[in-house]
């Protein structure tokens, strides 16, 4: 939890809220020393008067000091809230954890009783409880905690279920650790965050409930915040001021509890996802822009990417994520883009379709498809090309389909969009497409929902939808990464077949085998830049850029039996941390001072049809 505490500490609003809550608790605990009067001290002469010297926040009924009653009232209120939260936690957490961890009959029992409890009208039960124990707020609040517990049990159960499936817990189970130990050491710490958030939200609700009881006159008879509110509402006509101190106190406390809960939730989410949100690093100057790539375009290109430069706001500063990317593609050609994760492959591919993440901007260069400049096209024009002349195949076949619609409906939707035909016609064409991508039982697949399909089937459906507009170009973003090896081969066969039929392909991959298999040209990207472009065979045979060489050497296909696979040390720098000069300088074995001075331009190589971005070409 230490990491969480640190992350929590970075949220000023949450920290201030926590501080405020602690202050309120402390003031309440030391009420005897801090409050100017005992809570029930009467000053009849001052009854129902506004703020004065003697009564800083005014005096209520019987001239009791509002400030003192607020301070002492925290005792009754916070005690009631505490009791509620304790009952809520004690009843909800063990049931939830056991149900999630054990599963089976106990799980069903907990879920069913949660269902049962959910159907009980809480308000009626509370009214009856208060009728049996008049003004016994603690009893009523405890009952409300009990009635709320099934909800907590459900949430904790599903969190536990998730943790149980994780590898290390499975390992702990397999290694024969006792359940109690596993629960205490491995499960509880992982669900604590969820519990804290739920309990804090319930606590905020409990403060409101206490106030409501006070307003209805059903709460405790001792000084409490709820009673102050009740007193204020009774005397609204005489001294409306009374609503202010109690109202402000209650609203701020509830706000603070909620903000602390939100802060906890975010801090936990961060730990789990490893992303930082909400905090702001000091503003920094944008890194130097990349140098333009003025390689002349091929005259007969279907797709022409020229000096494409995209920025994304990172910490509020527009930062280049890809810079000066250029390449061409002729009709029927296949081009592969390789590189490690974070090199800008997917951003490049998305930019080809004019689909950029929110906030992104194309600051230089552009993409021309046939006669259309995609970076300047109207929304309608771009839409006609997307899915029409250019098809897209996604990385994750099942998640790439909308879970709420049948596979067929999604293919038919694409058909209708790009052919403008009627429903029945679209259905027929969709079935044809499913047949064309070699699915065995097209009508059954048509009726199936994504969750009912295997990865391979889903990817074929994805390809079928991409073919709906009879595209001249297919962009495939790692289309086989998520699939089994045999299925991979089948999908690649299908792509090869499409290529033979004349469709141009842009393939994004980090698998040299796939690339060599399918593509004519290879483009290697590193940290947002194209570092080398060459015919595949030539590149594999003789990589020019040190990065290309390193990538090729670490490829499992090239592994030499009996020798460890060479690993490329270090990591791709994040867009904000890219160095001036060669982006690869910090991982390059052949780096010189000249590599660091200034941005490196991409240059054509003498053997023609090849370019590379390295200051040391020739020197090598």
């Amino acid at each position, binding site marked *: 939890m230490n990491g969480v505490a640190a992350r929590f500490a970075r949220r000023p609003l949450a920290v201030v809220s926590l501080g405020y809550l602690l202050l309120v608790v402390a003031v309440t605990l030391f009420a005897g020393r801090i409050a100017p009067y005992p809570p029930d001290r009467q000053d*009849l002469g001052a009854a129902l008067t506004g703020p004065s010297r003697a009564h800083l926040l005014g005096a209520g009924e019987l001239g009791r000091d509002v400030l003192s009653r607020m301070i002492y009232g925290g005792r009754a209120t916070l005690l009631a809230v505490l009791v509620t939260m304790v009952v809520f936690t004690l009843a909800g957490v063990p049931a939830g954890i056991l149900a999630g961890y054990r599963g089976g009959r106990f799980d069903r029992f907990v879920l069913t009783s949660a269902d049962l409890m959910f159907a009980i009208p809480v308000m009626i039960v509370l009214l009856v409880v208060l*009728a049996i124990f008049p003004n016994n707020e603690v009893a009523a609040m405890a009952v409300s905690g009990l009635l709320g517990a099934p909800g907590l049990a459900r949430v904790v159960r599903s969190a536990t279920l998730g943790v149980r499936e994780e590898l290390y817990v499975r390992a702990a189970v397999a290694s024969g650790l006792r359940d109690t130990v596993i629960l205490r050491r491995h499960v509880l710490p992982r669900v604590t965050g969820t519990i804290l958030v739920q309990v804090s939200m319930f606590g905020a609700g409990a403060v409101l409930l206490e106030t409501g009881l006070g307003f209805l006159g*059903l709460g405790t008879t001792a000084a409490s915040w709820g009673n102050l509110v009740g007193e204020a509402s009774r005397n609204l006509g005489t001294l409306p001021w009374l609503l202010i101190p109690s109202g402000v106190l209650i609203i701020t406390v509830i706000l603070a509890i909620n903000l602390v809960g939100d802060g906890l939730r975010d801090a936990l989410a961060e730990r789990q996802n490893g992303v930082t949100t909400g905090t702001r690093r000091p503003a920094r100057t944008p890194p130097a822009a990349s140098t333009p790539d003025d390689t002349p375009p091929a005259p007969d290109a279907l797709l022409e990417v020229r000096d494409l430069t995209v920025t994304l706001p990172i910490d509020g500063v527009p930062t280049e994520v890809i810079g000066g990317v250029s390449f061409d593609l002729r009709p029927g050609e296949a081009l592969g883009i390789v590189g490690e994760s974070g090199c800008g492959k997917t951003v490049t591919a998305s930019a080809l379709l004019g689909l950029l993440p929110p906030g992104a901007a194309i600051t230089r260069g552009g993409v021309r498809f046939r006669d259309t400049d995609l970076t300047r096209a109207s929304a309608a024009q771009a839409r006609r090309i997307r899915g029409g002349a250019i098809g897209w195949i996604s990385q994750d076949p099942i998640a790439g389909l909308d879970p709420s619609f049948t596979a067929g409906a999604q293919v038919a939707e694409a058909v209708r969009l790009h052919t403008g035909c009627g429903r029945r016609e679209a259905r027929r064409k969709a079935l044809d497409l499913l047949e064309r991508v070699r699915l065995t039982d097209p009508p059954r697949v048509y009726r199936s929902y994504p969750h009912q399909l295997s990865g391979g089937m889903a990817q074929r459906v994805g390809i079928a939808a991409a073919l709906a507009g009879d595209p001249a170009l297919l962009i495939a973003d790692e289309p086989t990464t998520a699939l089994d090896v045999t299925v991979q081969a089948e999908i690649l066969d299908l792509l090869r077949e499409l290529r033979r039929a004349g469709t141009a392909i842009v393939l994004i991959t980090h698998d040299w085998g796939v690339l060599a298999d399918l593509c004519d040209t290879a483009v290697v990207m590193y940290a947002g830049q194209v570092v080398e472009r060459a015919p595949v065979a030539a590149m594999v045979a003789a990589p020019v850029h040190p990065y290309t060489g390193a990538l090729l050497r670490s490829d499992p296909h090239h592994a030499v039996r009996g020798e460890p696979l060479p690993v490329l040390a270090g990591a791709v720098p994040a867009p904000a941390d890219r160095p001036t000069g060669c982006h690869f300088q910090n991982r390059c074995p052949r780096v010189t001072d000249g590599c660091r001075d200034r941005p490196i331009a991409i240059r054509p190589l003498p053997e023609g049809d090849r370019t590379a971005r390295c200051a040391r070409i020739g020197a090598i």
Partner: protein
Amino acid sequence: MNSADMAPRRSWFTVACVLSAVALALSACTGATRKADSATSTTLTFGEQQAPPSLNPGSIDVGFVDFTMLSYEPLFYQNPDGTVGPALAESWKYAGEGNKQLDVVLRGGVTFSDGDPVDADAVIASLEYSRDSQGNQSHLLAGATFVKTGDTTFSIKLATPDPVLPTILTQAYGIGQIISPKGLAKPADLTLANATHGAGPYVFDPAQSVSGDHYTYTANPAYYARDRQHYRKVVIRIIQNQQAAVNAAQTGQLDVFKGDYSFAAQARSAGLQVVANPAIMNGLNLIDRDGTIAEPLADLRVRQAINYAIDRDAVTKALLGEYGTATQQTVVEGADGYSAKLADRYPYDPAKAKQLLAEAGYPDGFELPVLAAVFAGFKDMGEAIAGQLAQVGIVLKVDTMTDLPSYIDNSTNGKYPAVVFGYPSYPIYLQGKDLFLPGSKSFNGFGTADAKLDALWAKAAAAPDTERAALDVQIEEYLVENAWYAPVSYTPVMYFARTTVSGVATSVGAPFASPTDWSAA
């Protein structure tokens, strides 16, 4: 060049979403502007805080008489000034001496709303029903017999003297409201589900009513005194939340409502009439005067010390502002039994209180369990008294009940030696029956019997009006001297009325206003 051109356009959609959300919130406000529809003279709407269990005047609690008096004409009529005038009875007089027989002459030619004639038989049947109905006022007619002396004349013969019988048979008490023979044929049907069977100005209409929310009465076409039928329709709405009542009156939804002091200032600034009559005595009822469970209370000096220890003016001002009056007696100034001599019998004097306590053997005070309740201001009164007595060393342990049944049970089960209570400034005769005689259980939980007091009361009951006044004063003086109670304040019965209504008035003799008196201004 930025991404907006290339990225999907979302702005129109966002705008649409925001607009629809805002439009929704505002659509509420664009409804036709509402006219503050002032009460027309054809309908009177007034607010009450509690819903009645039935509309049976013979058994209903006296707190609900407003609901029945609209439909059930009483035998006599109590005017806003407290005097008793004719209603179904045209004239009446006590026969002989001792206040034991009342001869009554009924108005002729009057019929009930259900068509039955109002004659001696019908009225006697109704009174007999009320006497036997086990209702909470039945005891006021206990032992009475009724003798028909003609078609429209009869005599009420009492077992014990009753000098205020005509008052008891006015609209202010349920038992005097007369039910028709058709209604009495099936008293179990005198509920909120059926029309009423009275001879009053209005008839209850169950079809236009929702129990617990509103009760609608329409004009009775057969009513004998059309000049006292001021509206075509009367609606009683149950509004427990006082703020809601003020809002309703301010916007013309209510013409009159009974409320409490905390909203007087707001009501006044909203332009409502404020009719306030401090007539309900609040204070501490020292019921364990014999010291059964709280020994100190048996000592007169202790009871007197309690009376000396309370700063009545300060408490009254704190709790009731300008609308309450401090008191040491159970009757208000100007009422039967008020003693000018004892008006300041127990001035605020904590030193004297301490001295008396010391003399009684309690120099350090003692602890006293006290019963209170959340309603009728008893909680605040209890806490205020506790604050006062704490200064002379008497520590009150105040238990606050939330519902009436628990409060009543605990007032009479011998668990609490003292009770925070309220009692209207009724005639001394009635106070005897309800408050201080051994049989008056609700307010005399330990059944304290005092031969001298009982004899005085019996003598006053049988005395002619001229002598009774002096006897009543003696009774009150006895109660004060012996410190049976520690009265603190008279709290007002408050009516808030729009200026469109006139006739909302109360007096020493009639602390509660009758809606039958109200008319369009």
